[in-house]
């Protein structure tokens, strides 16, 4: 996150060894030990590289640890797609519930809900940096199964790349979240990184 905030990298994909978004200031669980995203934000702030950060969390479950840490932080936009509905008074902390529908329409419904919620808020917020907490546990057949499939995750990648380009000079960090299946990790992660690379290649130097 530091290298992206400093401008040495246009964007980045961060693999992880343990999850992050269920870890709050003084609690942890759900396979998460420490909150990687919030530690990264604290570090770029400490280094004076960025202040305002927009987080999109599309892991299947609520990022209650991240919310615990950023809940009173006016410099963080946190949009969490998690099966519950909530908007804070200042509009910067949003939980998004995507209604279940027919299996064939879930990708489109999920993408439409995220498209309506995140890019407009991101443009208005004008962050220094965008973070996508990308869990593939919501993929059909994984432990957080929401019936989503690969086109949805690749559509989310395009959405966050565009949002970062519009609002944060392209500065985007993708942090891997949940998901357990090796075949899904292998099928989804490389094309997402390819999209980041395409964006980096076309970014003004």
């Amino acid at each position, binding site marked *: 996150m530091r*290298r*992206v905030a400093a401008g*040495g*990298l*246009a*964007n*980045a*994909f*961060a*693999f*992880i*060894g*343990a*999850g992050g978004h269920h*870890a709050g*200031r*003084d*609690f*942890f669980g759900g*396979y998460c*030990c*420490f*909150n990687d995203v*919030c*530690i990264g934000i*604290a*570090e770029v702030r*400490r280094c004076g590289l960025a202040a305002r950060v927009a987080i999109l969390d599309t892991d299947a479950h609520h990022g209650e640890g991240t919310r615990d*840490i950023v809940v009173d932080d006016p410099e963080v936009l946190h949009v969490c797609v998690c099966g519950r509905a909530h908007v804070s008074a200042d509009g910067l902390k949003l939980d998004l519930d995507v209604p279940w529908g027919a299996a064939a329409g879930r990708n489109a419904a999920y993408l439409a809900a995220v498209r309506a919620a995140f890019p407009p808020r991101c443009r208005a917020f004008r962050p220094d940096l965008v973070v996508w907490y990308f869990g593939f546990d919501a993929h059909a057949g994984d*432990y957080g199964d929401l019936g989503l499939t690969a086109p949805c995750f690749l559509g989310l990648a395009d959405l966050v790349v565009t949002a970062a380009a519009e609002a944060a000079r392209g500065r985007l960090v993708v942090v891997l979240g*949940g*998901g*357990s*299946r*090796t075949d*899904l*990790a*292998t099928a989804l*992660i*490389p094309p997402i*990184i*390819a999209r*980041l*690379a395409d*964006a*980096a*290649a076309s970014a003004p130097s």
Partner: protein
Amino acid sequence: MTGVFYHPSFSRRSYLTVGRRLADFPAALEPLLFRPHVSLFESPVASDDLIRLVHDPALILQVAADPL
């Protein structure tokens, strides 16, 4: 430039008990690493000082003591 941050330990025991979901990495990244705008970096160890920027110091001890 796109940075990809990875550590071999992630492929041995990724996401704690969930298994070796990253067993195919970093091999699965090889075609991407031929691209001029992609660089692979080894994720560094996060220091306790860095973790304490966010977390209660007691949490570090609790995580260390957890059997997972």
